[in-house]
Every structure is written in structure tokens, then in C-alpha cells.
């Protein structure tokens, strides 16, 4: 940035305080004092219009730049200006003979020495490292067309001031390069009600830039002499908002500010700075709906603030959880907000007898909305905080209920579990004499249990990273070392799953049953037909559903999805596990992409297991809602008839051919 400034300075120094002309014929000097007519003899020539005046400029298209000065100056150049009647040389001093020098100094505006003195003290003083960029008189007031501030055509007429200052201050990037911190002051000001009332013609007295910042003696807001310095703001706003300033200075906030506590709010801390809006607008910082969340809440939710000034804690939170707070949040403007009870400018501590929340005044304060409020009603704390110290009865009542809920819930769960197990055993007793068929061998069941355990562990430990605040993620967050354990468990489960998958692959290739499993799992045209038939059956167009083989289309789809999902999860999981190794081969977005895929694929897999697999295995059985096949490996004849009739046919045909009586029984 220094470099830029330096180059700018050098550039402007070269152009200098000069007027460069292409004026041809020199003229004999006039010995007498020059008059404007003398100047106009040359300068009123249309040929001069081609030559622009170059002068050192501020950052943007300032007032003088917009005037578009050329070397052509007509007789009426000063018409309407406050300087009408002055002669050229009154301002363009230093010309004693013609032709004059090629380079002339800028008019010095020395008549206004009082204002010049003010300017010298301001941030716009023409000295210092950025002096070439600060605005000169003409940048704000214009060159020939200088008008008074009550003239609507004037650059300092209230309605025109934002664009006058905005020429430079509207350019936040350029200001930043100069080291001036600002947040789009002009853009924000145009949203304010100060501007809206000027723009809408309501008044031209509403504040614009110069009313708060000063005109010539503009100081930084960090300068204690500035009218916008924190402790000076009440007086500055009070110039127009008379009376409010007095009220404010008597309030708890005003007194604290007077004592020099800079944490206390001044006008702009609550109302905003440039973008001040009236309280009735929903976007206003002092709108009732925004007080708790933004304006008051910013300080009164702060633990640091509460500790430093021994303010009661949790007040904003308790308000937000109350009916008043909730109704406000959902757009009800009739209910109480912070200001309804505490006041706005005249906020006093409850210990002050004049305070609206002094116990003696509470009945009247509540009574503004609740006319029937009894004296007894408000004798207890208004902000409900269910803690052991604030309201022990409520606190212990709540504890009691929590314990009651946990006990009943636990007792109920235990009772119903026992109930269920007993009924289940009774059901199995009844089913025992029925012929059973082998669905899963012991090896297959062990593979399935390994898959199930590792899958669920991966889901819980994985999603606990994404949603650490969830109830089910509690052990990883609360237990010492829980977070590290989460990562370790996730990796152990991943290794189990990979090993299980590899074993399964070997099983598919190396064993006869495995090869048969693979053949039976291949999707066929029949599956498509089955799907059509089955959907027709679901929709009521057919009397009976498809006759499924060993694996229905749904089971095949699920198995293939599992294979695909495992491959993707293992691949992306290894990239995440060995990130530094893979970083050597992957593009820069590789890791993030792997992370994203790992998360979404996990969601997909978990969702599919719940919606597809759980639905099928829990409901597709006569023992619903619990199917023990994954442990016993068996299906009853009834289940075979219902869910795998084609397989049953094949088995029986084979048995019939072999003429062997004890079929595929176990």
C-alpha cells in the first residue's frame, strides 16, 4: 500500500499544481491590472474547449471533476455562483502580465482563512503522506459554480452532500488502500431514515454527513474532540433530538458512559451508525423484535460483561424462552420486548425508585398490558430461571419429573422387552414342528454379523464426528478420551469390514456354495418382469405377486448396492485415513472430494439399510416384527412358500429327481 501511495504522490508531483494549455500565440503583456475581460479575450474561445484542466484530484469523481473544466471560460461562468462579481484574478492570483506562465497555482481560497484553519486540523488537512489525495476546497464546493448551502443546485445542499462525500467515501476499496477503515458509510446512509426523509422531501433538516461529522473540521471517530467520538455522540444527536439526550444521560447507560466506561452504549451502539432506521421498521436495530436477539442481547448475553459489572446473567435467554420472547420471535408485535418493561433511553436499575422495574412500579409496568395484574403477581422474579438458587421449588419439581420420566421410560422399556421375549419364545415353540430350510450357513451368518457390527459402529462413530452435539454422540463428547476413542473405533470397524469383505470375496470364488451364491445373485431379465408384476400387485392390478427365486430383485439390488457402497467407502476412507500419502497423487480438491463422498455415501448407505433392508427383514416373516433368520439361518416352509416360491419349487424338483426323502432339511 505504501508503494501505491508513493507512486501516486510522485505522479501528482509531476503533473504538479499546473494548468497545461495548448494556447498558441503569446500576447504582449499589459502593464495595468488585469481585468476579467482581458482573460476572456483568449479564454472565451471555443477552440480552448479541447484542453481539459488537469489538477491534483482526490480519490474519486469529486464535484470539481464533475464540472468538467476546460480552458474555455465563458462570460457567464460565475453566474449564479456566490462568487458572481469577483474577477478572475481574485482567485487565480499571481498573474501580473500576459501571456501568463504555463503553470499556475491552484486558487488558495485565502479569503476563507477561518475555514482554512479548521481544515488544517481535520483528517482532510493538506499535509501528511496522503496529502496529494485529500480533497481541496473545489473538490467539495466546485470551481466556478460555487453555491450556498440553501441552494438546491449546491454540492453542499443537504440532499447533495451524500454524493459529494460519496465521491471518495463511497469507494471503500480505495479508502482501505489509504488505511481508512469504514463499512460502506454512504451506501448504508442511503438506507437510513435520515436520508429517506430528505429524499422523500419530508424535511431538508435531517442529518447528513456534515451534521454529525462536521464540515471542515472532520476528525476521526477515535479522536476525543470528534463529534462522533463515543462520549460526544449524545450531544451530537441531541442537537436535533432535543430532550432525549438529557433522558439518556440520566439512565444507567448514560451515567456509565459519563464515568468513562466505554463498554456502555452510546446512541449509535443501539441505533446503528449510518444506517439508522426508525423503530417501527422491522429491519431497525431498535425494532422490538430485534432487541433481545441483536441490540440488547449483544451486551446482555455477554458473560464477560455480566462478570465485569456484576449484571444478572441469563436474562436475555430467559426472556427468549418465555411466552413474551417466543411470541416476539414468531412476529407478534403486541407482546412485551426488552424495552416494554425496561424503557428505552431512560433505563434505570431496579434499585432506583424511578425505575419502571422497581418492585413498587412493577404493577404499573405489567399493568400497561395486563390491566388486571395484581400486586401479588409481580412480587416474584419476572425472568424465570429454573435453577437451584433462583427458584428451588421449580428446580426440584423439574428434577423430580426428569427422574420420573427416566424411571418410567426405563421400567417400561424393560417390561416390554421381557414381554416381547416371552411372546417370541411362545411363537417359536409353536413353529418348531414346521419344516425348516437353510437360508444362511454358519459361515454366512458370521460374515453377516461381522458386517452388521462393523457397519453400525462405523455409522455411529462416523456421524458422531458430523453431529457431535447429538444425544447419541454423547459418550464420545463427554467421556475422557471419548473423541480419540471414536477415531480408533471407526478405524477398527473399518478394518473389520475390509477383512470381512475380502473373506466374502474369497468365499464367493473358492467354495461351491459361494459360486452358487454369486450365480443366484446375478440380475436377470426375470427380475425386471418380477418388478413389473410386483408393482402391479401392490397397486391392485394383479391378484398375486411375483414368484421370487432365491434372491428377489430387491435383495439383488441391495446386495449390489452394498458391494458398490463398500468399494466407495473403503476407497474414500483410505484417502482420509492416509491423507499425507494420497496427497502426493491427488489433485488439490481430492481430499475434500473424498471427504464429501464419504459423508454422503454414508448417509445413502445408512438410509438404504433402514428403509430397504430393515423393512424387508423385519416385516417379511411370519414372526414379524422380529426375524431370527440372521441367527438361526432358517426359514420355515411357510416363509419359503411366501417369499421364495421359485426356489422351493427348484429344491423340491431336485429332491424329487434324486428321489431322496429327507430333502434340504436341517
Amino acid at each position, binding site marked *: 500500500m505504501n508503494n501505491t501511495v508513493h507512486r501516486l504522490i510522485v505522479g501528482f508531483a509531476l503533473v504538479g499544481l499546473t494548468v497545461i494549455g495548448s494556447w498558441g500565440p503569446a500576447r504582449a503583456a499589459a502593464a495595468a491590472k488585469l481585468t476579467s475581460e482581458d482573460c476572456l479575450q483568449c479564454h472565451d474561445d471555443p477552440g480552448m474547449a479541447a484542453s481539459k484542466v488537469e489538477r491534483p484530484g482526490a480519490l474519486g469523481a469529486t464535484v470539481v471533476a464533475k464540472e468538467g473544466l476546460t480552458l474555455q471560460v465563458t462570460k457567464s461562468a460565475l453566474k449564479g455562483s456566490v462568487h458572481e462579481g469577483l474577477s478572475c484574478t481574485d482567485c487565480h492570483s499571481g498573474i501580473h502580465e500576459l501571456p501568463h506562465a504555463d503553470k499556475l497555482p491552484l486558487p488558495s481560497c485565502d479569503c476563507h482563512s477561518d475555514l482554512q484553519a479548521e481544515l488544517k486540523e481535520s483528517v482532510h488537512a493538506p499535509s501528511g503522506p496522503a496529502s496529494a489525495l485529500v480533497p481541496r476546497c473545489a473538490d467539495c464546493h466546485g470551481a466556478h459554480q460555487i453555491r450556498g448551502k440553501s441552494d438546491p443546485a449546491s454540492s453542499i445542499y443537504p440532499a447533495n452532500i451524500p454524493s459529494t462525500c460519496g465521491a471518495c467515501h463511497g469507494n471503500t476499496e480505495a479508502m482501505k488502500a489509504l488505511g481508512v477503515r469504514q463499512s460502506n458509510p454512504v451506501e448504508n446512509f442511503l438506507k437510513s431514515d435520515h436520508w429517506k426523509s430528505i429524499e422523500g422531501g419530508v424535511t431538508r433538516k435531517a442529518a447528513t454527513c456534515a451534521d454529525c461529522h462536521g464540515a471542515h473540521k472532520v476528525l476521526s471517530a477515535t479522536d476525543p474532540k470528534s463529534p462522533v467520538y463515543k462520549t460526544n455522540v449524545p450531544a451530537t444527536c441531541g442537537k436535533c433530538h432535543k430532550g432525549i439526550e438529557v433522558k439518556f444521560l440520566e439512565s444507567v447507560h448514560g451515567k456509565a458512559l459519563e464515568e468513562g466506561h466505554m463498554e456502555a452504549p452510546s446512541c449509535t451502539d443501539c441505533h446503528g451508525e449510518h444506517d439508522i432506521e426508525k423503530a417501527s421498521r422491522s429491519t431497525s436495530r431498535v425494532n422490538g423484535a430485534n432487541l433481545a436477539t441483536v441490540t440488547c442481547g449483544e451486551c446482555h448475553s455477554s458473560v464477560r460483561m455480566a462478570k465485569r459489572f456484576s449484571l444478572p446473567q441469563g436474562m436475555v435467554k430467559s426472556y427468549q*424462552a418465555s*411466552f413474551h420472547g*417466543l*411470541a416476539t*420471535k*414468531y*412476529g*407478534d408485535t403486541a407482546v412485551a420486548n426488552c424495552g416494554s418493561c425496561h424503557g428505552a433511553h431512560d433505563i434505570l436499575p431496579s434499585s432506583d425508585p424511578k425505575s419502571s422495574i422497581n418492585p413498587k412500579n412493577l404493577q404499573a409496568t*405489567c399493568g400497561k398490558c*395486563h390491566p*388486571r*395484574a*395484581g400486586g*401479588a*403477581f*409481580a*412480587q*416474584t*422474579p*419476572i425472568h*424465570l430461571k*429454573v435453577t437451584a438458587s433462583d*427458584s428451588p*421449588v*421449580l428446580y426440584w*419439581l*423439574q428434577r423430580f*419429573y*426428569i427422574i*420420573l*420420566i427416566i424411571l*418410567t*421410560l426405563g421400567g*417400561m422399556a424393560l*417390561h*416390554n422387552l*421381557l*414381554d*416381547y*421375549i*416371552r*411372546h417370541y*419364545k411362545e*411363537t417359536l415353540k409353536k413353529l418348531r414342528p414346521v419344516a425348516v430350510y437353510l437360508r444362511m450357513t454358519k459361515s454366512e451368518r458370521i460374515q453377516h454379523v461381522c458386517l452388521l457390527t462393523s457397519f453400525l459402529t462405523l455409522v455411529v462413530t462416523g456421524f458422531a464426528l458430523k453431529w457431535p452435539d447429538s444425544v447419541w454422540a454423547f459418550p464420545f463428547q463427554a467421556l475422557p478420551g471419548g473423541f480419540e476413542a471414536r477415531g480408533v473405533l471407526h478405524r477398527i470397524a473399518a478394518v473389520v469390514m475390509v477383512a470381512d469383505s475380502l473373506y466374502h470375496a474369497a468365499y464367493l470364488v473358492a467354495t461351491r456354495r459361494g459360486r452358487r451364491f454369486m450365480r443366484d445373485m446375478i440380475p436377470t431379465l426375470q427380475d425386471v418382469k418380477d418388478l413389473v408384476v410386483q408393482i402391479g400387485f401392490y397397486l391392485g392390478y394383479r391378484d*398375486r*405377486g411375483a414368484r421370487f427365486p432365491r434372491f428377489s430383485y430387491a435383495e439383488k439390488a441391495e446386495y449390489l448396492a452394498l458391494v458398490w457402497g463398500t468399494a466407495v467407502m473403503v476407497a474414500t476412507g483410505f484417502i482420509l485415513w492416509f491423507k499425507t500419502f494420497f496427497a502426493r497423487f491427488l489433485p488439490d480438491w481430492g481430499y475434500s472430494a473424498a471427504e464429501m463422498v464419504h459423508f454422503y455415501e454414508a448417509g445413502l448407505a445408512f438410509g438404504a439399510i433402514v428403509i430397504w433392508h430393515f423393512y424387508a427383514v423385519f*416385516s417379511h416373516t411370519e414372526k*414379524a*416384527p422380529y426375524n431370527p433368520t440372521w441367527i438361526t439361518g432358517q426359514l420355515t416352509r411357510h416363509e419359503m*412358500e*411366501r417369499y421364495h416360491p421359485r426356489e422351493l419349487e427348484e429344491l423340491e424338483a431336485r429332491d424329487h429327481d434324486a428321489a431322496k426323502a429327507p430333502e434340504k432339511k436341517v
Partner: protein
Amino acid sequence: MTKQRPVPMVERMSLWQRVVHGILILAILMLVVSGLALVYHQHGWAQALIAAMGGFGGRAVVHKAGAALLVLVGLSHLLSLLVSPRYRRDMRESVPHLSDLRQGWAGFLWRMAGKGQPPRYGRFTPMQKFQYWGLLACCLLMGVSGAVLWSPQASVGLFSKRFVDLMLVVHSSEAQVIFILFILWHLYDIHLAGGNFPMNPAWLTGKMREDLFKAQHGAEWDAMKKGTKE
């Protein structure tokens, strides 16, 4: 698939009982949804529910309409007891008895250890009696605390804020007890317990499967067979 023979059914609930039970479900759903949405207002699902009810004001309307409906159900229940012999019989059947404790214990042992035989319950099992009277007591408590909260304008004139706060805590905590103890348990009984899966349809058709009825209400079935009951 073979065509199934019609399963023999036993009548369990009259049409009027089913209608009132339906209104009770509606009332409790309205109360639970609009009430828990308020208790858990900081959660996304609760905020979505409040928005679905038309905002904060709409939520209150739903809650109060549900409460009014529940009071109506209570009144109709009282009226039915006055005019209907069937209701009076059901009321007599639901009076808690010392044998309920014995049967409850026997049932517990059977579940726990498979000891003895499953108890042969009457028209209402001990658990159903407990649920009926428990729900009734809880509804009364909810009615009292709810009445205090109904109109803030009235209650600020009558009570201290501490008392209103107490009623607020009672109302919201009790609601969760009701939800867990009665609604979830009842849903378990109807959908999962004793071979009812996927559902005991009595609340819709008025009838339940004879084999399940025999298993769940053995004593009642015996009495019906003896002709002492219809």
C-alpha cells in the same frame, strides 16, 4: 398364495366408543404436537411444526382447540356412564382389584422367567386399568394447570407469578410423562404386544382376533363361553 379363511373375531368396542376414541386421539395429537413444539421450540422440527400450524398464534389456537375437544370427550364419557349400561359394565370391569396385583405379579414372573402359565386376564388387564386411571388422573392435573395458563390476562390478576410458573413447569413436565407413560406404552400394547403386530384393529373395526382375545383376556373368554357374559 392360498386364500385365507376368515379369521373368527370377537367384539371389543362399540361404534360409539370407537368414535369417542377417535376424537380422543385427535385431541391428544393436537395437544401433544402443539404443546411439545412449544417445549422444544429451539429445535428445528418444533419450529417447522409451529410454522405448519400458522405461527405462534396458530399453535395456541390448535392447543386450545385440542384442550376443548378433550374436555368434550371427558364430558361425553361422564354422560355415557349415566345413560349406557355398556359403559357402566365397562366401568365396573375397570375397577382396580386386589387380584390385579396378584395377576400383575404372576404376569411379571411369567415374562421374566417363564414361570407358570400366562395369567388369564378379564376384560381389562391390570395394565389397561392402570393406564385408564392414570391417564384420567393426569388429564385432571393437566386440566387444572392448563386452566391457569389458558388466559394470562386472567391469571395475572388471580395468582402470583411464582404460582403461574409452577403450573407451567407442571404442565410441560406432566405432558412428557403422559406422552411416554401412556401414549407410547399404549401404542406398544396395540401394535407389538401379545402377537398384535402389526396392529390390534379393534379401535377401527371394533373387533379383535379370537385367538388373540383368548390369549390376552382368558378369564373374559371363559365367562363369555359360560354364558354369564355376552
